[in-house]
């Protein structure tokens, strides 16, 4: 069974440019998460989806970040415009539901220069 797939693996952009990340969760997983991981830190939740509904986006900086999960499957996370401080690894994860363990993708390493 395929795991969580994220693309791209790496992205380098100039500040003020837009960037988007894509995630395909494990088939049948209703819950999808986007996490941010800074160097030397644990992952921090940005947003959680139950099917296509964003049910917890309190940690998402809404002035520049947006996310969507069309048809309750794939998801995209967008940053516009990117800032130097956005350089980090963006992790997507999915689980059967919010009470079970989450499975992570390999992440997208973003570098803003």
């Amino acid at each position, binding site marked *: 069974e395929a795991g*969580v797939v*994220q693309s791209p693996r790496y992205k380098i952009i100039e500040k003020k440019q837009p960037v988007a990340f894509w995630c395909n969760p494990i088939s049948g997983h209703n819950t999808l*998460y986007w*996490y941010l991981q800074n160097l*030397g*830190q*644990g*992952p*921090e*939740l940005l947003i*959680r989806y139950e099917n296509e509904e964003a*049910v*917890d986006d*309190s*940690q998402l900086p809404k002035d520049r970040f947006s996310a969507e999960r069309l048809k309750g499957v794939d998801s995209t996370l967008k940053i516009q415009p990117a800032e130097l401080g956005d350089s980090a690894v963006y*992790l997507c*994860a999915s689980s059967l539901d*919010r*009470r079970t*363990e*989450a*499975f*992570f*993708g*390999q*992440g997208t*390493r973003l570098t803003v220069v």
Partner: protein
Amino acid sequence: DQQVKQNSPSLSVQEGRISILNCDYTNSMFDYFLWYKKYPAEGPTFLISISSIKDKNEDGRFTVFLNKSAKHLSLHIVPSQPGDSAVYFCAALMYSGGGADGLTFGKGTHLIIQP
């Protein structure tokens, strides 16, 4: 304020010996605790979990212990193998409302297995 704390940034253990990774939490509302393992340039991989109604869960070489009164859990790896060298994250989950609905992670402990 960190709700899940891993106070040892790194731990070095000789191959074949026991590795003990520790984790403390502050929020008594957490219902479920998990350990993840992470290799460089990869996402975290689920390792083992424990419900708050239990005090021990074992899976092969890995055992997790939970002490609710002390708000402390630990991961034991016996015997330690070179492939166990990785960063280990402790994470906690709250079933009911009142906090973040996703996993809350600690900062991780880098385990190094010495030959």
